[in-house]
């Protein structure tokens, strides 16, 4: 199942040119760029593994694309996403987060039902396949 997490996830995969345009936009807003990867795309798995350090002082998207290419070489079969962090006062949050690489085979999810105290039913998702 093609997971739909983050910006643009309902669109077809972004090309390198499109990723570069997005990063240029991020840099034009003075946001920091971070690359993260994981092999576990559960929706509650918020903290993916960081690739290198967040990039605060770049002026051009080429630097990020270089890091992205290295990440793809090292983890080509994992989910890779790009985060953009806005550090201005009042925000201090991730402003954009979009997936730039998906594994060849994406897992799907199964809904799990559990009875807790007093027949209270709790639901969760589990990855399968």
């Amino acid at each position, binding site marked *: 199942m093609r997971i739909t997490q983050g910006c643009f996830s309902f669109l077809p995969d972004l090309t390198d040119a499109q990723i570069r345009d997005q990063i240029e936009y991020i840099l034009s807003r003075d946001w920091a760029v971070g690359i993260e990867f994981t092999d576990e795309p559960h929706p509650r798995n918020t903290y993916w593994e960081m690739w290198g350090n967040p*990039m605060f*002082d*770049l*002026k*051009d*998207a*080429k*630097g*990020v694309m*270089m*890091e992205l290419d290295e990440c793809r070489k090292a983890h080509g079969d994992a989910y890779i996403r790009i985060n953009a962090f806005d550090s201005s006062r009042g925000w201090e949050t991730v402003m954009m987060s979009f997936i730039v690489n998906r594994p060849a085979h994406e897992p799907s999810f199964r809904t799990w039902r559990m009875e807790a105290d007093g027949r209270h039913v709790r639901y969760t998702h589990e990855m399968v396949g």
Partner: protein
Amino acid sequence: MDGDAAPVTVDLRAEYESSGVREILDELDRELIGLAPVKQRIRETAALLLVDRARRQLGLAHETPTLHMSFTGNPGTGKTTVALKMAGLLHRLGYVRKGHLVSVTRDDLVGQYIGHTAPKTKEVLKKAMGGVLFIDEAYYLYKPDNERDYGQEAIEILLQVMENNRDDLVVIMAGYADRMDRFFSANPGFRSRIAHHIEFPDYSDEELGRISGAMLGAQGYVLDPGGAAAMAEYVRLRREQPHFANARSIRNALDRARLRQANRLFSAAAVVDAKSLSTITEADIRASRVFSGGLDIDGSRRKDVP
């Protein structure tokens, strides 16, 4: 909307005006005193880049020109300043995307232990992408006599990036002329990648005099006639002293002159007006050790008396 047909002619003069190249070259003429061969070379480079741009517009085959440069000259001759202007020029002509300058020396590129150099150099390169990387004293990268030196690694990475990422980055290396020659002959890969070698001559006494006037003017001071004559003599004498760094030595000398002026006005304890606050007199300059037999920088510390 149908696409615009490719133009058949290009007016180079119009391009020169519209692309902002003229402003930069005029700024260069105004702000940098002397450096005639440098300005000439930069003008020639600008013409080359304009023509190349025109060729691109007319759809003629083109390859990205090699823009890496080497600036050779003594310290204080304006290499970093010109590199900054060059970054602006290349940006106006569309050869670098962002036009910022990242200025590094060997310490920013070379690590202290195995495995440290590559990430360090890559970080610097990432920051410099889209602009100009200025490597000062580039020859320190190469230390053949120390086998535990990791400069060679940085050199390899640089050479690769200079060749493969010519669209993204322009590298300018700077340093003393003779040492740069030795560096290039030991690392021939660089010489073939660097298209423009620009020499920065030492300033003449007259040019240094004008520079000192310009520096003071920028800070809102003037030299009175006695001070101007003393300054001219100071320049002549300072040149003979060791560690002469052209414009930088002048700047340091002027800072010390301002210090002496401040002390003079303070000890006189008189009421000062704008004019006296802004005037550097002969006395402020003559007090320098340069007039009384030399700076003797290396031997100036008094030995402890046992």
